[in-house]
């Protein structure tokens, strides 16, 4: 059974290449453009890993992460922040919310894929 990945980002031109990469690596993918939509999909789609942008319309990525981490039934869901916010303080805040990885944009696709594989093999 393929692992499931949820991409949360409101920039369609970033989502397109990510979606292509995930599908190419045989993951099942769903897309959410907003934080609200992401939280909806987490319950119905139940992804194994979430690629999470931070600057989102409505509730932001930090809040999405926090909500997930407050739900014990989602303990096994991996969270990878993919954000253009590259200051140390932003990264620290993300990792402080118990995310599994924080990757700054722009990223090397190979690096992202390696991290995803690593996290999903555990």
């Amino acid at each position, binding site marked *: 059974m393929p692992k499931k990945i949820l991409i949360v980002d409101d*920039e369609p031109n970033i989502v397109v*290449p990510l979606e292509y990469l995930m599908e190419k690596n045989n993951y099942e993918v769903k897309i959410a453009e907003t934080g609200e939509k992401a939280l909806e999909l987490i319950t119905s789609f139940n992804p194994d890993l979430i690629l999470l942008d931070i*600057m989102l319309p409505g509730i*932001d990525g930090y809040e999405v992460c926090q909500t997930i981490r407050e739900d014990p039934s989602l303990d096994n869901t991996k969270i990878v922040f993919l954000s*253009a916010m590259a200051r140390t303080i932003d990264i620290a805040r993300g990792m402080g919310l118990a995310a599994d990885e924080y990757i700054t944009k722009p990223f*090397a696709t190979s690096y992202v894929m390696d991290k995803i594989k690593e996290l999903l093999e555990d």
Partner: protein
Amino acid sequence: MLEQKTIILISFGYMGLLFAIAFYGDKRAEMGKSIISNPYIYALSLAVYCTAWTFYGSVGAASRAGITGFLSTYIGPTLIMILGWPIIRKIIRISKINRITSIADFIASRYGKSTVLAGIVTIIAVLGIVPYISIQIKAISTTFLLLNQSPKITMASNLVNIPVLKDTAFYVAGLLAIFAVIFGTRHHEATERHEGLVAAIAFESIVKLVAFVAAGIFITYGIYDGFGDLFQKAQAVPQIKKLLVMDVSATTFTGWYNGLFLAMLAVLFLPRQFQVIVVENVDEKHLNKAIWLFPLYLLLINIFVIPVAFSGMIHFFESCQMDTTCQQSLSGTFSGILQFTNGIVDADYFALTLLMSERREGFAMLVFIGGMSAATGMVIVETVALSTMVCNDLVMPVLIRVEALKITQRHDISSLLLTIRRASIILLLLMGYLYFHFVAKLFSLISIGMMSFAAIAQFSPAIIGGIFWKGATKSGAISGLLAGFLIWGYTLVLPSLVQADFLSQDFLSNGPFGIEWLNPHQLFGLDVALLGFDPYTHAVFFSMIINVLLFIGVSLFSRQTEIEQKQATLFVDVFKYAVASEKSSFWRATAPLTELKSLLERFLGKNRTQNALEEYAIEHHINWDGQLTADAGLVSHAEKLLAGAIGSASALVMVTSVVKEEPLGFDEIMDILDETQQILIYSRKLEKATIELEEANARLKELDKLKNEFISTVTHELRTPLTSIRAIAEILHADTNLDEERHNKFSGIIITESERLSRLINDVLDFQKMESGQIQWKISQFDFKEVIEQSLAATFQLVEEKSIHLKFHLPKSEVQVTGDMDRLIQVMVNLISNAVKFSPAKNGIITIGMDTENEHIKVYVRDNGVGISPDNLEIIFEEFTQVQDNGRGRPKGTGIGLTITRHILDFHKGKIWVESELSQGAKFLFTLPLAQYSDLDEGVKIT
């Protein structure tokens, strides 16, 4: 039917309530939570001006002389409060700095802390005020007797020969003395301020106002059908009709001005007024409200005077017609007294007798309490103020000087001070009673009041001259005061003794010993009939003129001592030296600490001395342990503390006895003052400079923060297209065998995102140019519709991608504008791409509209997105500002797009703004001048 018991019980109950208020006020003051420290209480306490003379006497005066009979007494204070507040403020400031305890202290302190002057002022005040106190006694006892015999409303006409012990007035005086002693000298320590007393007085002011207005309303609307009905009925009475026509004789005219003049001075310089306005003032700022609140109070309490007077006349003239004795006595002019067969009705008490004749005993009781409030308020504050003066300025100076009494060696003088004050209060009321018993019954309330006012007016040249003219000397003040007072006594008091049959009538008609020009009602043969001078105007005219002339004349020809010179400067230049004089000491000397301390302890008591010294030590960072001498500053401080208890004149004597050295000379003092003044000015400047620096620093920091945020958002915005481009480039690089459809889509994205990157970089560069003011404008004239077309072409792809529906409201004809076309296209592109960005993902609608208004075109771009909250409508055009808007979510873009847009429109003399509500979409609007109204010339401009 009111029983005597009931009246007495209610009266005592009321006094008990006042004590409770006073007690509470003092308790709160001790806890440091003053209840009188607000402008409303302050204004109410000033209304102690309204005594029984107001409460009852105004109605009597209105019955005799109509509106001219009483109104000047209230217009005077209104004028002085509104026009004379700078004088009042100056007096308050001087008194606070110098711890002035009374009006005598004020005058004495100004003229070199002169004990002689303090004594003279005190004597004048006592002699002038005793008659005034007597009318309060008269009012209370008369109304008590009236109420007591209800429902009968006439009074026995001859009350003069009642033996003292059967005289109600005697007991009233006695009770008043007890009240005043308890109210005014409750403290164990002699202080200048009485918080509880002021609270009680303010309460009494409310009671008397409510009582009189309530009675007025009942009489006007209960007995009659309002003002119209009352005045119609009044027209039918010939005596009233006469009052309604303004009597324009010279007497009315000068009498009116005389009343106005005296009332203006009395409201400030009556000892009780000085006490509440100046001595009891908690905060100078309270004056700001009092200058209109107090006149408002006076207006309210006077509204119903005329209605009450007229209805009294209508009512009692009717009964008079049925009484044979009365019918005969009722002449063309009403004298204020109606002589019935079985007694008299006095117009002064119409409010009471009217209510009684209507059988409204409860209501009459309320009026009685109101009148009692007016009378007791006056008596208590006046005797407290006078007793302070008698004690500090008359008795103490004598006791201190008489060596044999060894007064200065007694351990605790503060209790002696209290005893003297208590005795003075009792003595004052006894004098008031005696005056009432032997003289006052012959006069109306208002005539006695005028006499007091005329005496008090004598203080005004010395006070007002003293705070504005440094040249005024002690000799000048003494001469003016004494002369004015003597003329007052000669022209007003002596004639009143004639009326009381102590002197022969011949004295009035032919002058003393037949010397015509000494006639007390016609000094120097002045033709009073021609000038229209009544005896009061005559007395005020001569006493004031001679007072002022002597004050100025003698001042010009006499010299000031050093201490006078110093005090004159401190008083006249009080605002200049206010802080400096508080911080400087005028003693060269130091004094043994123990001696100074024991001096203070004797007058202030142990506790207060201890507290005062501790406060001083904390403020000046002094440790008393091991200190043997008090420095000059402490000596000065001690003098002020003493002045608060025994007046400035005695305080100076006492401190000199310990220091055994004269205070500094005038020149030395001025040096100190100027130096302190300079230091103060420097430190103020320094403070200002520091604040300015801090502000500049804060501004820089803020700007720095904004720049940092700007850089962080710009780089963030750069990362987004870069991310997309890099990811896709990596895919294209790795997957050489991508299908064609994907390949085209991916390369398309790279192109779009590269364009986005260039736009962003251009924006940043534009912004930088505009900020530094180096931008080239290519000015030409064109149709603005062309701008819209081109901007639509540029944003076509964005709109398509989100499948947004576009709507247009554009005019058919050309709309010519002058400006930089490319820049204006940039404006439209910015607005449209913004609208696209915030449009909903589905069913987005953008409307673009334009029309002409007067000399402008108005263009708008409206979306149906989430909108902007009202708070942010203004700031979104500011530099570096990104709206953190919950509605629109996290900000997108650098926030410089709108700033650039605003800059471009500013250059074109256009305006931009946004109209929006959350979730209602946003509508960006801007205006531009039409070509024919633009002041831009074609060509290239650099700004």
